[in-house]
């Protein structure tokens, strides 16, 4: 129980602070959990690993949970993953059951979150143990698998998803082919005059902060930075918090299966690399519709819809950490930002992480558990005040966010102005790219994994001298190819099904 010495009261303070800020970010439409983590990263520069992670995990849990507030009260999802919460949550508010809907959502969130922490705790070490045996070849195939999964579940088309992922890899290759990983120290993919700044390529954090912070704000600026919340009259808010629809835990009677199934769906969708929250909650909502005794009630204000959606999107949190901590592959865009936090502290996430840093791993689990509990207590008892948070105007918030983005980008390498320009570059690229149809999630995963993919691929070929090695190395390699084919088949199948419907 060595890790107990790491559990200071400070850790819990950071977790609670993270949860509160996260809820605020989640509750304000146009601001997401990913943004919360990205913007608050600079705060962790001077914290130690455990406290820093506590803060970030708190932000993550709070950010995902906060999204239910505007979803239920205003029919605007606060984060992408609370889209399905609006289907039943808002009708409940209109029926005068706002408080009931909120508290049902909050309790389901707690359940989904806790369930996913347990799965994380038992599953990640097993997967990591298994992955330790992987050679470069299996590692390369895992990355290939990750990219094929992201692509096959991408919103528009598989090809565009793959294209975005490969484009991310291309951006990650800019810079030096580093000698420390067996490269020849040559720079590539740039003009000579760029060598001074781009010697080590684009830094991960400014890229992330640019895409998720500045990029999002540019999108909002194009729409004119309207405060939806302001335009909705205050009557909706007060009606929502009125004591008409009383909440009691009996709402969950007969919903335990739903609660459990949705949490599991959320967790397992979270494990798939690069697949974000909306996929999890949409899937569990449709499942609930299939299994419900009275499917026609869904969409008209049925608590079971809120339960399915919220249990799933909090299940995501623990799930997304599984591939991150066992394979080094982020499960969604928020965990992609968390990779940045690990690198910052000089820690490599991958199969060896849990074994080598058992104390950090245990404190992470404790932090996640306490974040979920803190989220529940804060939201359950202070929901009226949180409901007011969503009225904080954006013209005050956005400048603060850009300022924090700049601090984060500038400080990451101890004061390099080029990183700030990287932030701007990728903010604009993210804005323009998503207009052209590039998908940000595969892009980011490609960018994060690109350099490792290169090393695994080239070194495997250098030592074996043949492409066939990727198929014949081991049974695991064959198994991974089967998984890759399944994910491609799945996407072709579902797109065909989609075009028929």
């Amino acid at each position: 129980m060595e890790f107990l010495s790491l559990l200071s009261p400070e850790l819990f303070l950071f977790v609670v602070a993270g949860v509160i800020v996260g809820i605020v970010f989640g509750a304000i439409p146009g601001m997401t959990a990913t943004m919360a983590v990205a913007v608050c990263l600079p705060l962790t520069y001077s914290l130690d690993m455990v406290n820093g992670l506590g803060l970030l995990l708190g932000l993550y849990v709070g950010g995902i949970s906060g999204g239910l507030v505007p979803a239920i009260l205003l029919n605007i999802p606060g984060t992408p993953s609370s889209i399905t919460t609006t289907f039943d949550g808002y009708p409940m508010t209109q029926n005068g059951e706002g408080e009931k809907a909120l508290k049902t959502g909050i309790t389901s969130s707690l359940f989904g979150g806790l369930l996913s922490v347990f799965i994380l705790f038992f599953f990640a070490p097993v997967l990591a143990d298994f992955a330790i045996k992987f050679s470069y070849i299996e590692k390369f195939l895992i990355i290939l698998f990750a990219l094929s999964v992201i692509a096959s579940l991408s919103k528009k088309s598989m090809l565009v998803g793959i294209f975005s992922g490969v484009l991310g890899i291309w951006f990650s290759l800019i810079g030096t082919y580093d000698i420390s990983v067996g490269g020849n120290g040559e720079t590539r993919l740039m003009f000579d005059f760029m060598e001074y700044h781009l010697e080590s390529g684009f830094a991960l954090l400014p890229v992330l902060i640019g895409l998720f912070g500045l990029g999002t704000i540019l999108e909002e600026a194009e729409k004119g930075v309207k405060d939806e919340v302001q335009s909705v009259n205050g009557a909706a808010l007060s009606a929502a918090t009125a004591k008409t629809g009383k909440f009691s835990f009996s709402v969950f009677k007969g919903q335990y299966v739903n609660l459990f199934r949705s949490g599991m769906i959320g967790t397992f969708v979270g494990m798939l690399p690069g697949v974000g929250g909306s996929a999890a909650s949409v899937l569990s909502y449709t499942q609930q519709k299939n299994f419900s005794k009275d499917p026609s009630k869904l969409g008209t204000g049925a608590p079971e819809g809120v339960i399915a959606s919220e249990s799933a999107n909090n299940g995501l949190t623990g799930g997304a950490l599984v591939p991150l901590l066992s394979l080094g592959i982020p499960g969604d865009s928020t965990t992609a930002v968390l990779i940045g936090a690990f690198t910052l502290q000089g820690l490599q996430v991958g199969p060896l992480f849990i074994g080598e840093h058992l104390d950090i791993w245990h404190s992470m689990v404790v932090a996640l558990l306490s974040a979920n509990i803190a989220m529940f207590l804060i939201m359950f008892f202070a929901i009226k005040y949180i409901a007011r948070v969503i009225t904080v105007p954006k013209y005050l918030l956005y400048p603060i966010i850009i300022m924090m983005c700049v601090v984060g980008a500038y400080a990451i390498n101890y004061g390099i102005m080029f990183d700030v320009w990287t932030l701007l570059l990728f903010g604009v690229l993210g804005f323009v790219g998503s207009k052209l149809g590039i998908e940000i999630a595969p892009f980011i995963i490609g960018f994060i994994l690109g350099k490792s993919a290169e090393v695994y691929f080239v070194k495997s070929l250098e030592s074996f001298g043949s492409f066939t090695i990727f198929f014949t190395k081991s049974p695991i390699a064959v198994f991974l190819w089967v998984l890759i084919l399944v994910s491609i088949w799945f996407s072709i199948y579902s797109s065909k099904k989609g075009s028929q419907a």
Partner: protein
Amino acid sequence: MGDSFSKLLSVNIDFEQSHMFFPKIIMWLLFLLFLLIVVLYGRKFLEDLKAGRKSIRFFEENFDKIRLFGTIGVVILYFVLMDYVGVLFPNTGLGFLLVSIPFMMSLSFLYVHDLNKKKTIIIFLNSIIAPTAAWYILGNLFNITLP
């Protein structure tokens, strides 16, 4: 035949050129994917375009030119000035503080709708308090490097 097949799949990477081996594959892949996308979706897209179901309009309809380009302009100005002023007061983070205040004010005034006296006061207070707090907490308490 099996022999020639395995020859086809064997590779020999020249170390001197190995930095371009993977990037070349990636660029070919990007090119092929792009072609595939054009071939598979291009025709339908053009048809949709002709039929008026889709448009090549880049920006949203009635997009907010002033706020969008204003944001980019103000941000660029912010970055340039921060670097410039930061050099005048090295290692104090004052460049950050002094430039952030006007930056936040101009961005807030750019974004706000229906400006009134109360909003003006709040914007002024916010633009002064937020950077000062960030400068003090991050720069002085947490010792984070600021421009």
